[in-house]
């Protein structure tokens, strides 16, 4: 993927500005973010989930697919912290493995839609004309469908499965990023420094990547964080209706769907995966809100 192209100049610009550290906007934002309490809580939750997803499999006494008919539907206890499901599988282990799946799906789906959406948005905003019309109408078409319905349709075409669910989530999020990028580019394009760059005869591609992209980047970052939360929810929704993760993958949405029958008799089978979804989504939302507060110039005191 063309991820390298947009980021490379960005890094360069960071190194270029290094000498004048005191005034670096990046450092400014970082400091503001660290002071932002709810963003830090959100970030903490996300870090926590990433951490357990990475290391917990080493610590777990049970595999996520370890079946034991004699240990079925046990309430939370010292042995099974979150209880067991109707297969007698340890819910704690499944929730933690589920974190891997959800984060993985969220990350790749959002990265994918950011890359595709940004490129399309850049082209539409910078060149305008028929390219803009074409790309913008394409976004309109995608946005005309309710997101989850479109995701279901795409998965129905590709066939159920985690990977296909990921593609579907990536596709439905493309227009959000695309339109955001396009509107930023339209604004930035009019700035004096772009005019200046044009005046000295800089090539379009150089203007795009050195001047426009770095200056349109921040809202994408904010939207990306918020979009991560939506992507986790969408993956869970697809899993719930059986179009996402396939058995025996311990995806949270699928766990919810599998335990519907036990909502009264064994509520822990639903509560813990539900909590996991809620916390992850909350974490990304808090962080995203914080990022927006910090990065939006209008919000600066």
């Amino acid at each position, binding site marked *: 993927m063309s991820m390298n192209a947009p980021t490379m100049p960005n890094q360069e610009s960071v190194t270029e500005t290094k000498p004048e550290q005191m005034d670096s906007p990046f450092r400014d934002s970082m400091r503001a973010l660290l002071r932002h309490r709810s963003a830090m809580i959100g970030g903490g939750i996300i870090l926590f989930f990433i951490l357990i997803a990475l290391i917990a499999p080493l610590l777990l006494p049970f595999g996520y697919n370890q079946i034991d008919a004699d240990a079925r539907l046990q309430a939370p206890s010292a042995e099974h912290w979150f209880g067991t499901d109707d297969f007698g599988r340890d819910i704690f282990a499944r929730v933690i493995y589920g974190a891997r799946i959800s984060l993985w799906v969220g990350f790749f789906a959002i990265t994918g839609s950011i890359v595709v959406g940004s490129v399309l948005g850049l082209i539409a905003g910078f060149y305008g004309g028929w390219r803009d019309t074409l790309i913008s109408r394409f976004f309109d078409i995608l946005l005309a469908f309710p997101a989850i319905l479109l995701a279901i349709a795409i998965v129905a075409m590709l066939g159920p499965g985690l990977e296909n669910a990921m593609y579907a989530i990536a596709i439905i999020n493309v227009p959000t990023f695309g339109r955001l990028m396009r509107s930023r580019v339209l604004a930035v394009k009019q700035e004096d420094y772009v005019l200046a760059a044009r005046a000295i005869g800089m090539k379009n591609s150089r203007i795009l990547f050195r001047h426009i992209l770095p200056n349109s980047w921040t809202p994408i970052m904010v939207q990306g964080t918020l979009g991560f939360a939506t992507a986790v929810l969408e993956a869970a929704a697809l899993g719930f209706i059986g179009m996402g993760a396939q058995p*025996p993958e311990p995806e949270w949405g699928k766990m919810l769907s599998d335990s519907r029958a036990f909502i009264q008799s064994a509520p822990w089978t639903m509560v813990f995966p539900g909590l996991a979804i809620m916390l992850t989504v909350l974490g990304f939302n808090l962080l995203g809100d914080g990022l927006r507060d910090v990065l939006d110039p209008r919000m600066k005191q």
Partner: protein
Amino acid sequence: MKIHKSLWIAIGFVLVLSTVLAGCGGGGSNAGGQGKTLIYGRGADSPKLDPALVTDGESFRVTENVMETLVDYEKDSMDVRPALATKWETSDGGKTWTFHLRKDVKFHDGTDFNAEAVVFNFERWMNQEHKSGKKDDFTYYASMFGGFKGDEGHLIESVKAVDDYTVEFKLKEPQGPFLQNLAMSPFAIASPKAVKEDPGKFAQHPVGTGPFKFKSWKKGDSITIVKNEDYWQKGLPKLDQVIFKSIPDNSARLTALQSGDIDVMDGLNPDDAKTVEQNDKLQLFKRPPNNVGYLAFNMEEKPFDDKKVRQAINHAVNKEGLIKSFYADLAEPAKNPMPPSMWGYNDEIEPYEYNLEKAKKLLKEAGYEDGFEVEFYAMPEPRPYMPDGKKIAEYIQADLKKIGIKAKIVSPEWQSYLEATEEGKHDMALLGWTGDNGDPDNFLYVLLDKDNARIPAQNIAFYKSDKLHDILIKAQRETDKAKRTELYKEAQEIIREDAPWVPLVHATPPLAAQSYVKNYVPHPKGSDSLAEVDIQK
């Protein structure tokens, strides 16, 4: 002018209907209105309502209340009693059967039920005429009577109307379970007029002689049948209307029952049986276990053409665990393809024990040490013999993984599921069978004989054993029950050795109803006549 008039009638009808509906109230179950409506909640809609074209219980559940057979089963067993035929004789060593028909019976469309109608129906099936679509097939007819006219094994030589109310069947060979077969729902007698007019419409709107008349069908949602005022059994049916409502999710269906939206529910989660028992407003029923839930291998696909692989998987399935986890102990492990309550059951068969080491060893001998990948079809809807196919598949999947087999669970919607398995698109598939005529032939021949391994197959293992075929045919043509028992016992030994299936369980499906529902008897064949059912609040 004409349009005008019919418009007024339509408006009038809507008005009347709206008052009737308003009178029924939200629950719809007879709150003050003079009509007694029973709402029967079930797991899936019927694919088609022409019983001759289908093989699934959800279709028969409706059609058996609309259409009737020459002979029928007793209310609570598989013994045969008179129905549209009042009496019968057999002669010529079981090759000739003469049926005397009931005289005062009319089809719902007003035409007479007589010998001509019976002959028409049998000729329709054996000649494969008047089908609603090209892909349709009289699967059941072929399964029970050895194919169609012109086929080598076809059993019925002729069906003749001797006089208006006498029908004579001539068979090429005697058939042990002949009478039992005739009582089966697929051989219900349809109105010849309705079938001839439009077989396509008939599959959507059945016309028979039964206690209820078909009224309407909202696809995927509900089927409504109403009282047949001219029913030949006086005083029946007791209900004015029955609505079969599909609610795919077992728990959602129970919630609907608890809140009074439905009156009877099929497919209770075994786990919820206790909840129902403790509720005074509800009653619990247990359908007699006359079924088998199984895992079939597609023997035409590698690696399942190898007996050792099939036996290996037989060793890798933990039936006790399945029963504990998904049947709440309302089932027993299966070792034969037919339930133990059936005569001819071979109890001396040694079941394949759950032993992963043995399984691995067999796989190694077959040359599949490193395992393989398969597509494992799991049914999407709850069935009486399998309350949750997807979970059962997931359970088996975990054990298969331990012996190196990677199973991908595939679960298309029910209609496509049946078609895919009939056409052999699966590597392995879960399915089950509820016996519908009380004869071992109905399990062994229908599900495992090579005659039924052609597409659309009932023998979804595509198990083609000549040895078994010879025994099953011999048993069919034998009329002495003791001899037949011996033959069926031998057949079960062959099946055990060849292992075309993993026989999983024989379930006792629990059902629930409101306590005011009276005279409801869950029949062992899996679908019930509702003629005598009543609501007394």
